[in-house]
């Protein structure tokens, strides 16, 4: 489903250059559950952003579902994001003044989905996230765990195949963190390809496949048959 070939990403900071990613090669099959671990600054977020088409590599090729993305224009990349990729951020990025329902609805609103279809999809998502009774709460009225669940609801409402989560539990206490991870894993079991960036070793171990990053390169790529991931 995903193939990275010799991906390079360099940031210029002042006079110096920072190689955030160097010569990264990676294949991810549909339905996989990966965790990305590594020290701060090792390029985890950069990798995730490139996978999510939020950032462009300086070199190499990224194939998403067979489509070469390097040559795609902004419009086409936005379309791929809209239809195939969901994001979960550490700091939720909910829109203030939009309640939980409206935040979840936002991607469909931007995509121009008809109100009736929107309502049905959002109702389903609220139901499965157990947020139905919080539907009309503003983000400021929700706990961290609830906010992240709303954000996850927003990321899956368009039914993407790929879910990218950058330290989704970074701002949460252990209990709500575990709940959020359980939710993500459930989505993975239903078929979504899941990639979680995390600092939390215990959490990272739960994935089937672990990427260990160091200095912008994938140092280790190990598969585990981990019963934890199977709940």
């Amino acid at each position, binding site marked *: 489903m995903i193939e990275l070939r010799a991906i390079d990403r360099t940031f210029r900071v002042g006079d110096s250059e920072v190689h955030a990613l160097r010569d990264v090669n990676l294949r991810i099959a549909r339905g996989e559950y990966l965790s990305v671990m590594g020290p701060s600054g090792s390029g985890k977020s950069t990798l995730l952003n490139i996978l999510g088409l939020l950032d462009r590599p300086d070199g190499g090729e990224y194939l998403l579902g067979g489509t070469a993305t390097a040559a795609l224009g902004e419009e086409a990349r936005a379309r791929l994001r809209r239809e195939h990729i969901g994001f979960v951020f550490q700091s939720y990025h909910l829109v203030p003044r939009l309640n939980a329902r409206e935040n979840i609805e*936002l991607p469909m609103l*931007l995509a121009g989905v008809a109100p009736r279809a929107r309502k049905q999809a959002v109702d389903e998502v609220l139901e499965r996230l157990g947020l139905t009774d919080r539907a009309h709460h503003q983000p400021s009225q929700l706990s961290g765990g609830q906010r992240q669940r709303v954000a996850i609801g927003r990321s899956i409402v368009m039914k993407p195949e790929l879910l990218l989560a950058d330290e989704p539990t970074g701002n949460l206490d252990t209990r709500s963190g575990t709940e959020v991870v359980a939710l993500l894993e459930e989505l993975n079991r239903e078929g979504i390809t899941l990639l979680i960036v995390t600092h939390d070793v215990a959490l990272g171990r739960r994935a089937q496949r672990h990427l260990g990053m160091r200095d912008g390169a994938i140092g280790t790529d190990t598969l585990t048959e981990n019963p934890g991931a199977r709940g």
Partner: protein
Amino acid sequence: MRAADLLGFTLLVLRRQRFRSLMLLVSVSIGVAAVLLLVALGEGARGYVMREFEFIGKDIVVMFPGRKSTTGGLPPVTGVAAREITLPDLAVVARTVRGVDAIAPLVIGNAELSFGSRAREAVVIGSNADFFPMRHLDIARGQALPPLDLTVGSPVAVIGATLERELFGTRSAIGAWVRLRDYRFRVVGVLQGRGDSFGMDLSEAIFVPVASAQTLFDTQALFRVLFRVRAGADVEATKRELLARMTALHDGNEDVTVVSPDAMISTFDGILRALTLAIGGIAAISLVVAGILVMNLMLMSVRQRTAEIGLLKALGAPGAQVRTLFLAEAGLVAAAGVLLGTGAGYAGSVLLSLLYPEVPFQVPLWATLAAALFALASALLFAWLPANRAAALEPVLALGRR
């Protein structure tokens, strides 16, 4: 994105930035209202002047001494006559110029008017019987000046209503003898109302036969002569003929000016219209100022909402859609401002009409449309830069990395 959703989302954003939205709304509406009010003032002034002019009648031609120095059509303010227009001149003109069917000469001066022990300064207008119908002056009581040969004086007078009240109180002036300097006149009629004369209150004037006025002021010169063009005759041709005849009478010197109110009307109309446009245009500058405010506040908004813009992009909104969102924001505020400002402008114009009923204040449709279009165009144009900036934001950076 559906139009209804775009509207809903934009309204939400505007409500979230209540102060900013309100400021934009107010600035746009003030701009629009200012344009409309000033145009209403200009149109009111124009209408007022035009009404005064049109009362003169399109078939009236005015002659006065002096050559008009420009071809602009306006009478010279300080024309020095090479030679005066006299009653004998008019006798010849009356005989020879076929296109004229009535002539009213004018001598105007000031003199003390007294009745018994009461006296006051009055405008004395020396003219004839034809003057009254030509100037649409009605007689309230009594009669107008009698039809006389122009060169014959007569001790009769018509006085304005104000003069009658001030000199006679509640009594009628008809039949009374009044004194102008050393001459006595018998009042034969009282004028109705103010009269209509441009800038002059005829209710404070006394009318006497032109020859009597010449004697009174010891002059042969006529101040103005009004000619009425015969129905069916060509006004321009008659003007040319009058001028030619007078030039011949004055030994070939073209030393009088003949104008028709039509020419004056169109000149004044042009000037006042230009003036209205000019002040409307000056007021439109306030809309440009509003536009600049739109730009600055939107730039602020883009800066503050950077993370949100990044999010929208991560959720699949292309740059063009982000731009549309920001333009919609500016457009919506401007549209609301236009509505509010138009309401305020019309209300102000109605208020002015109530305060000054004699001036026909009104906001023309063209001004309303122009102000609305200009306000919208200015807001959208100035919103373009911030909207583009938002559209061009890199999603990763926007999401607030560092």
